């Protein structure tokens, strides 16, 4: 009886939500839409001023949420979309899951950041700022309200972070809409990758991905591609086998310890490689490895089997015993 009631209730909610969804989309189609967007061309300076006014009022908040992302291999851009520091960027910027990134905010603050999941087929990626916030953020256009020809603007830290300059704004129109890629005539350059494309109201509609040789060929990943795999990316999944990020190969991870099995059936570290990931994490000769990622370790075979499943750059949680005391150590694996 109770179960069926619960089920019934759920169904009702679902129906209500669907209806609500329809209503929202029906109303929000034009709620905040700039009327010039419905003209093929702006007519005279009044229309031009209307575009300019909208852009100028959206710009400060948009700029405050745009960040530069620095990685070992170079720098790209990203945009903060929640007060607690969730960032959207491009997969070819983060290059993988769980990567260490330094984010530079508009005001120059440097904050540690880690990449979450990505979609290697479409160039979507997420990252999260490690400190709590609150951060300046922008609203995501979840309702997919943008149409071909709409006036849009892009921001990004072209060529890297430059405090005196700030993130450069470029204006354009949405000139092509294809399945998983939008094209605008806002010119992009290296360092803009992962940066935001906005409608003139300042809603996030795309993430910069790549350019063609022509100034008009500036490609962005639309929000609908992010929304398609939102939860998986939040959970840190590596999606697809596309060109924008290379899936880490299992077994490519390198720890850098020599071990021996003790008479008591334990695994003891006998050697720590110089400049190895193990050394960097603070593992010492004589440590006894008890657990890795929750799995009990008691011999070499356990360890080897576990490492076979791990790739370079993955993080391991080790429990070790040193001087009779248990200690937790996190190691980021290197490349074999």
């Amino acid at each position, binding site marked *: 009886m109770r179960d069926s009631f619960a089920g019934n209730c759920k169904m009702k909610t679902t129906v209500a939500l669907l209806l609500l969804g329809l209503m929202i989309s029906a109303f929000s189609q034009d709620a905040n839409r700039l009327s010039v967007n419905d003209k093929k*061309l*702006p*007519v*005279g*300076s009044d229309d*031009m*001023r209307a575009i*300019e006014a909208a*852009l*100028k009022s959206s*710009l400060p908040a948009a700029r405050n949420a745009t960040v530069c992302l*620095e990685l070992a*291999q*170079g*720098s*790209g851009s990203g945009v903060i979309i929640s007060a607690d520091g969730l960032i959207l960027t491009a997969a*070819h*910027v983060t290059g993988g899951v769980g990567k260490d990134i330094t984010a530079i905010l508009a005001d120059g603050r440097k904050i540690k950041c880690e990449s979450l999941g990505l979609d290697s087929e479409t160039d979507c990626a997420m990252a999260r700022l490690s400190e709590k916030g609150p951060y300046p953020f922008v609203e995501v256009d979840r309702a997919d309200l943008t149409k*071909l*020809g709409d006036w849009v*603007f892009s921001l990004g830290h*072209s*060529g*890297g972070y*430059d405090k*005196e*300059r*700030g*993130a*450069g*704004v*470029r*204006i*354009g*129109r*949405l000139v*092509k*809409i*294809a*399945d998983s890629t939008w094209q605008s*005539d*806002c*010119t*992009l*350059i*290296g*360092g*803009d*990758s*992962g940066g935001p494309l906005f409608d003139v109201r300042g809603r996030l509609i795309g993430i*910069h*991905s*790549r*350019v*063609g*040789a*022509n*100034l008009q*060929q500036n*490609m962005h990943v639309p929000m609908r591609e992010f929304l398609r795999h939102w939860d998986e990316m939040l959970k840190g999944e590596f999606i697809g086998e596309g060109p924008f990020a290379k899936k880490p190969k299992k077994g490519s991870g390198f720890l850098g310890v020599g071990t021996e099995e003790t008479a008591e059936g334990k695994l003891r570290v006998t050697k720590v490689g110089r400049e190895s990931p193990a050394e960097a994490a603070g593992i010492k000769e004589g440590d006894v490895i008890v657990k890795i990622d929750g799995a009990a370790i008691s011999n070499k075979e356990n360890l080897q089997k576990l490492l076979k499943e791990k790739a370079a750059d993955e993080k391991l949680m080790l429990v070790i015993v040193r001087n009779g005391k248990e200690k937790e150590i996190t190691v980021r694996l290197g490349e074999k």
Partner: protein
Amino acid sequence: MKWKTAIMMIVACSATARAFESLESDYRTNGSLMHAVVTRANQSLQEFSAVVYDGKKEIGYGIVITEDGYILGKWSELKNAGALSVRVGGELYDTVEISAQDARWDVCLLKIEAGGLKPVVYADSSDIGQGSWVVANGATSRTERRPMIGVVSANSREIRAEGGAVLGVEIKEEKSGIVAGKVPEISGAYKAGIRDGDKIISVGDREILKREDLVEFMKDRRVGEKIEVGYQRDGVDQKTLVELMGRADTFGAEESRNDAMSGDVSKRRSGFPRVIQHDIGGTSKTVGGPLLDLDGKCIGMNIARANRAESYAIPVEELRQISQALLDQAKK
């Protein structure tokens, strides 16, 4: 700037069989129909912008500043021209004199034999705010300049010389002291008479004994500054005045990934005391003309196409001073 640390992929835009919607090119931000939308700026472009040619080749643009034919242009793009001619409106003028120049700002003053030209109308201020519309010349025909639109992109600021300001001598540290190695002919040092093998004794009021002395002195110098250099040749001490240039402009710079993406950019694109940054595209040959607001007033002079996404203009406040100083210099 950290060009080498920039991530962006270039892809060939192959035709795709999948369905897509596309905006006709005439309606795009710089499509052919846009000139009708910016009528006042377009009119200004036709009136007081100039096209500069070397023979038949278009090499730059200019701003008409007096009714009797004084015109501002980008010095580094024009100075090596063999046969200068200038077009204003539909009229071609083939007697052109370079009457004055300002190396620091890379601006020169041209004079054509003309009368009754409509001179530039300056805006009161260049501080119109980021995201404001701006208009500049794109391509040109015999009778018409084509307007291109964009916005003010970033903070107005100084663009330091790429690699810093230099005298223009390669430094050799020898037992006797600091000796000039290669001195490129375009450098300030060469023009001031310094040659390979001269011993550098002093710069400004500082004695030079080792490399660090020179490095320290040059640290906060700017392009266009004139520095007195003491040097020794064949045992005789001499003094000369060297005008500083940017390192990349003197010795050349390696092409970065972003340069490869940018196409034809200005050779001199750094070492400016202050610029407005905007996003209007173009090439090294479309620089030198006015940057206009929607009312057709001049808020600056386009001075460099820096890369695919960035163009620089001299703000009107400085431009008025430069233009007055050049006129004074020419009429002396």
